[in-house]
């Protein structure tokens, strides 16, 4: 028997597998029993309803998915009344994902979702900051520190800061989020990208640019997790192109304590239970009694010596 439980700060998860925000809803429970997951992160919500971006909202790329969904949300009151109770009934830790345009709005929404039963709050600081001309909060260390600090003062719930990969030095941003009081980091959101239809010369997305996800981005995010893990002491939750258990093992070896599965749910909605059972089997076959033995294994190794030809 393998003990699959992991700790994310003060929160114990029965296993390290959960959906990435915006990639699963309660509908997934019609495919399999959702209570077997380690946690559940619903789609990001904002205080005021928002329609989202014009269609087309997705475009296929080699081994990837470009999306510009645009964070459509029914708003906070609708979420609290109609959606949160459905999630809370599942009985697994629910980490509410929130988004906002200013540090003050972030603090406000975090205060309002700090309700009994909510296990934690994921702050989507990869979204545009209205006070900085639409630049994402997590693109800079200073803006990250400011927003996380403001949120920390507003809630005593665990805060997971979801970082953007669209920054020059993600480790610096990770340090700022930790200093601001984040309990964990989610590394990372999607890469800003673009695709053009060569028949019409029009952008393939209605919003022109969008976020790239899927296996295409995985090696870059593995590098980012590896760098962040060396820079901070708080746990890291990996997110970026995870398709199978081997990808989870790779991220955990790079220093992640848990993993969010995103785009893979669109290709196979039953993928998370499969990843979970394959991960358990991997640990069993390798003689690991605890899945936590995987965390940071690569960090503790000496760098590989040069191959002799």
């Amino acid at each position, binding site marked *: 028997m393998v003990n699959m439980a992991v700790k994310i700060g003060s929160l114990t998860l029965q296993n390290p597998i959960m959906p990435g925000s*915006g*990639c*699963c*809803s309660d*509908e*997934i*429970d*019609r*495919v*399999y*029993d959702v*209570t077997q997951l380690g946690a559940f992160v619903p*789609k990001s919500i904002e205080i005021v309803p928002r*329609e*989202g971006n014009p*269609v*087309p*909202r*997705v475009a*296929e*790329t*080699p*081994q*990837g*998915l470009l*999306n510009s*969904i645009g964070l*459509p949300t029914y708003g906070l009151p609708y979420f609290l009344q109609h959606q949160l109770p459905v999630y809370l009934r599942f009985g697994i830790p629910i980490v509410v994902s929130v988004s906002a345009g200013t540090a003050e709005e972030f603090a406000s929404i975090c205060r309002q979702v700090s309700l009994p039963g909510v296990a934690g709050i994921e702050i989507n600081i990869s979204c545009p900051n209205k006070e900085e001309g639409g630049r994402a909060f997590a693109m800079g260390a200073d803006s990250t520190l400011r927003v996380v600090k403001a949120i920390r003062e507003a809630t005593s719930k665990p805060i997971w800061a979801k970082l953007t990969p669209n920054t020059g030095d993600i480790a610096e941003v990770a340090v700022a989020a930790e200093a601001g009081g984040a309990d964990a980091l989610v590394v990372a959101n999607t890469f800003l990208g673009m695709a053009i239809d060569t028949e019409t010369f029009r952008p393939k997305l209605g919003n022109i640019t969008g976020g790239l996800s*899927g296996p295409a981005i995985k090696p870059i995010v593995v590098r980012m997790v590896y760098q962040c893990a060396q820079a901070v002491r708080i746990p890291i939750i990996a997110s970026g192109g995870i398709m199978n258990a081997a990808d989870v093992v790779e991220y955990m070896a790079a220093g992640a304590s848990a993993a969010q599965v995103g785009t893979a*749910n*669109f*290709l*196979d*909605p*039953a993928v998370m239970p499969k990843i979970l059972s394959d991960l358990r089997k991997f640990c069993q076959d390798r003689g690991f009694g605890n899945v936590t033995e995987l965390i940071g294994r690569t960090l503790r190794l000496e760098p590989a010596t040069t191959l002799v030809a």
Partner: protein
Amino acid sequence: MPVHDHLAVRERGGVRPQPIFSDHGRVLRNDHVAGEYWHMELEVPNGMADAAPGQFYQMMCESRATSGPMPFLRRPMSIYHFDRQRRRLEFLYKITGLGTTALAQYRCGDLLGLVGPLGVGFRLQELWKHILIVARGVGLATLAPLAEAAHQHGIRSTVILSARSPDLLLSKDRFLKNGAAVSVIVDTDRSSDVENVERLIRGFHAAYPFDAFFTCGSNRLLKLLKTLSRELNVSGQVAIEQQMACGLGMCFCCVRPIERGGRIEQLRVCHDGPVFALEEVNSW
């Protein structure tokens, strides 16, 4: 299936959520029919074919090509025929892009990844006696299971099938088998002109009034049915399409503007549809 045992405890107000299967079907045949149209029949795991007319499945169309672009996402496909007991699903599809090109390469005995049944299908009311089905092109396939369900409920179907040319009227026999009165209209002799379709519908309605209209596959026919639905006070339903990613309502990529409760909402075609009330959908 054990993976769905938990749905018994998810019942709300006596309604158990419909299970969604993610599994494989075995291809029994995949034949070229006419033009760009292909017909696929699959044997699927127990329970997976327990669908409703108008619902759809997400197909993992894996390309056999060793080079060139590969489909990354699944492709949604509406059901042409389903049989719960014999665990059979049939699809009638048109080759239009990367996904359907890959789909046409599947051979008898191959396994095809399927997710479903998905979406909200057509609704029939017990008291109805006579429905009108108007379909064009590949929309014929979507409406074939509706005629079958109507037949089983003792509801008569009058069907108007529209196509570019007579050789592309693929499902005529299916509709006839289900006791439908079928009229064929084609572009080649201009019988598919909207004025002629309107004349036909008015004539049928005068002889034996319709309780409901159903359509799929043509913007022109949608427009016409919306007008006639208002004028003749006959309710209607339409199946629509949109590019999809997940197919379950999770990703919010397949939205279309839908008029509901006096306002326009961006609703998900995969989750809130693909079947909507005629008055909710605006022609495009």
